[in-house]
């Protein structure tokens, strides 16, 4: 192991490798800034060139492009309320209200720093767990994954402490929508009503953009012509990015806990960053002292999800490298690139190619630092966008949203889904229904159902007696009971 470390260190700290890393970060930041497009697109475009490079340089470039995606997708989330990718959705909750108060710079400062540190903690956590990973994944079988998915859905649906019924309904609806298409077990088409577009299910991006982005854009333009996003307040000294840094320092323990949540969730196949961000956010809400400000611009609502997001990335890499299980579409592409470079994800990456795995770990660490530094340097300029007239930004953002939705499957259906869900999103927002559980339900559905069936097919009923399953089940029940009790206490108090 030690000589692999030495080799890896030698391979990465050369001028050309660092140049590739920085180049990747730079490129990823430019393209990743556009909502809906992201590291995956950049990688797809560059794939023909990447495969001609030597494996170490190629990996370094790939990590660079990928690493900044999780940091840069926060930028449109904070500035416009449009998540750059689904992993930035939780950051919108408090990041966007902060921008409206004129604190966009502070939000971004906190977000970038949290991303950076979260990514580091994630990388080191995963590194430390590598010896344990194989036994861990082997003990954690299909039944355990299923229960974890259920627990995640329940926890997130019940984040809406004050309206648990609505949260559960929306979560259930998300699960049901995720079931449209072919059933993973039987291959039978469900609820596709003979529409070819629906046979793969409705893609996530048009729905997420429709439900979140478009209602926010509509509300953004509520003021008179000439309003700015940051109409809510003057720029004061507490709104600078350095205040964001101070916030992170003040809430360092939340940052660490969120990073751990992210790393552990990221290691579980399939569960990934989409759930990690909400779990971290929910944890911040539940553990926070004054909760009223959440959703109105509380910086803790930015720190927690961003740390978890980048931390879960490390777990994602670990799964992909050590087991060949890509946790996201981008990881699938990265795996494909690795195959073309002659590297097969799997146990060999921890034995024959260990030094390349360590090159990736190093790159993750350094890319995180570079990405944080780069974004941090331009925070003031980016925040300046909130001073532009809203009505000038609106049409351009609408165009980008439509394009981002369309490029999911390049089908008219994407636009229909976008429009349909934007109507639903507007209605939900106006009538007080929480939107996040819908997305989480959709994301986790396939996983939950797949693992459910594999579990019952392979284990019969004996899976219910497995110790970890029992623990997870207990946790789920406790979460529901706790939420209901909190809700009735709130009602009784009033």
């Amino acid at each position: 192991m030690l000589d692999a470390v030495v080799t890896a260190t030698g391979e990465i700290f050369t001028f050309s490798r660092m140049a590739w890393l920085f180049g990747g970060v730079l490129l990823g930041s430019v393209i990743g800034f556009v909502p809906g497009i992201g590291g995956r697109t950049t990688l797809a475009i560059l794939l023909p060139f990447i495969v001609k490079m030597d494996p170490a340089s190629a990996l370094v470039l790939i990590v660079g492009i990928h690493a900044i995606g999780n940091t840069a997708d926060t930028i449109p989330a904070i500035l416009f309320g449009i998540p750059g990718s689904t992993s930035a959705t939780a950051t919108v909750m408090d990041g966007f209200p902060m921008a409206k108060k004129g604190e966009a710079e502070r939000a971004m400062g906190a977000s970038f720093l949290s991303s950076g540190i979260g990514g580091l903690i994630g990388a080191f956590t995963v590194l430390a767990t590598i010896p344990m990973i194989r036994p861990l994944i082997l003990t954690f079988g299909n039944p355990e994954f299923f229960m974890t998915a259920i627990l995640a859905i329940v926890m997130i649906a019940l984040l809406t402490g004050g309206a648990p019924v609505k949260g559960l309904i929306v979560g259930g609806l998300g699960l049901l929508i995720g079931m449209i298409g072919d059933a993973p077990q039987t291959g039978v088409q469900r609820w596709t009503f003979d529409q070819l577009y629906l046979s793969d299910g409705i893609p996530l991006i048009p729905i997420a953009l429709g439900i979140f982005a478009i209602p926010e854009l509509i509300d953004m333009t509520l003021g008179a012509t000439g309003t700015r996003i940051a109409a809510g307040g003057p720029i004061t000294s507490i709104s600078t990015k350095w205040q964001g840094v101070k916030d992170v320092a003040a809430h360092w323990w939340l940052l660490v806990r969120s990073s751990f949540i992210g790393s552990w969730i990221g290691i579980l196949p399939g569960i990934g960053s989409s759930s990690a961000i909400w779990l971290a956010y929910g944890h911040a809400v539940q553990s926070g002292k004054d909760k009223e400000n959440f959703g109105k611009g509380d910086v803790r609502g930015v720190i927690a999800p961003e740390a978890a997001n980048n931390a879960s990335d490390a777990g994602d890499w670990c799964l992909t490298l050590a087991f060949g299980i890509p946790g996201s579409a981008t990881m699938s592409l990265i795996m494909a690139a690795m195959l073309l470079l002659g590297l097969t994800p799997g146990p060999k990456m921890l034995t024959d190619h260990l030094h390349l795995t360590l090159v990736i770990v190093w790159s993750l660490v350094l890319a995180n630092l570079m990405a944080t530094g780069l974004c941090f340097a331009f925070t003031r300029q980016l925040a300046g966008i909130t001073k532009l007239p809203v009505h000038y930004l609106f049409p351009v953002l609408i165009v980008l949203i439509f394009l981002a939705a369309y490029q999911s499957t390049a089908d008219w259906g994407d636009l229909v889904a976008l429009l349909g869900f934007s109507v639903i999103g507007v209605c939900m927002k106006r009538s007080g229904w929480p939107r996040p559980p819908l997305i989480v339900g959709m994301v986790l559905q396939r996983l939950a159902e797949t693992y459910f069936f594999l579990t019952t097919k392979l284990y019969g009923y004996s899976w219910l007696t497995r110790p970890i399953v029992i623990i997870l089940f207990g946790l789920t029940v406790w979460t529901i009971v706790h939420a209901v009790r909190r809700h009735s206490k709130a009602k009784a108090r009033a």
Partner: protein
Amino acid sequence: MESKNFRNAVVATLALAIGLIFSLRYAGAQSGESFFKGQTITIIAGSSPGGGTDSLARLLSRHFSKHIPGNPKLVVSNVAGAAGLIAANNLYNRAPKDGTAIGTMATGLTFRTALRDPALKFQLEKFTYLGQIASEGNFVYVRSETPFGSIEAIKKANKEGKKPKFGAQAKEHNSNVVPMAMEAILGIDVDVVYGYPGTAEILLDIERGALDGRAHARGSLFATRSNWLEKNFIKVLVVTSPQRDSRLPNVPTLEEIAPADKKPLLEAMYSVQGRTFAMPPGVPPDRTKILRDAFAAMFKDKEFQQDVDKLGWNDELIRGEQLNKKVEDLVHNELAMGFFRKILQ
């Protein structure tokens, strides 16, 4: 004065129009050789970037151009959806028929043809096939500690009511088709648990003991779990390519142990393992020939072969003309079509 100007204008317009018509006709009738210079050929991949047929499309885009006279530019366009069906529909009906559109043919299309799926807006045998560059022979193996260590052992276990549990991805995936083919051809009974998100999850469940074995693409097995072979953790029962694999010379091919009357089913299975490309019907014959020849030339390219090896496939060229005939035969092969229908039921 004005009428003269007007006449001039009319003559000039007529001359321009005639010139345009002639140049257009000339462009249309451009000889195949000079046609491809400066052109862009779009390769339609039936999956999203990083997905199954995407690697195939990109492989072609990297190596094909230098063998085509004129060296046209090759770009990959992803049209995901319905496991390659939407891409195939597009290719057949909407893509230009002048030789600038190529598509990857997903194996699921054969199944849908067998099912006479109304969503199909094409006839499989009417595509202009470019060729097949590789096939994915599969090893079928079980964990050594199971009582299923040979075909006879499985038959014996079947009589006692026991079936080996195999893991598979989607129903149309090789991991399911191959065991089903074995059932039909060898008369054994297997329990295939499909719905696994990916190949890695199946391997993990084999390691956990939840599964007994699987059908696994040859290259992929060596790339991911060669240590299983070294430690004798698994026993390979059969290989589904036409020849034995030189790395495991003692493993018989399915063809060797199949009873004679079941051999037509082998054709069905081979068709599902192929990696093929096609163009829409109606591409001018001279351009078709140029591209098919270029395809065969690419096959001899060392760099191309290295890339194919990296992806874990075996290079196996089938020229476009032969492929067209094969597909035509397959579509009319009732035994094979019936088999496909049974798999998807």
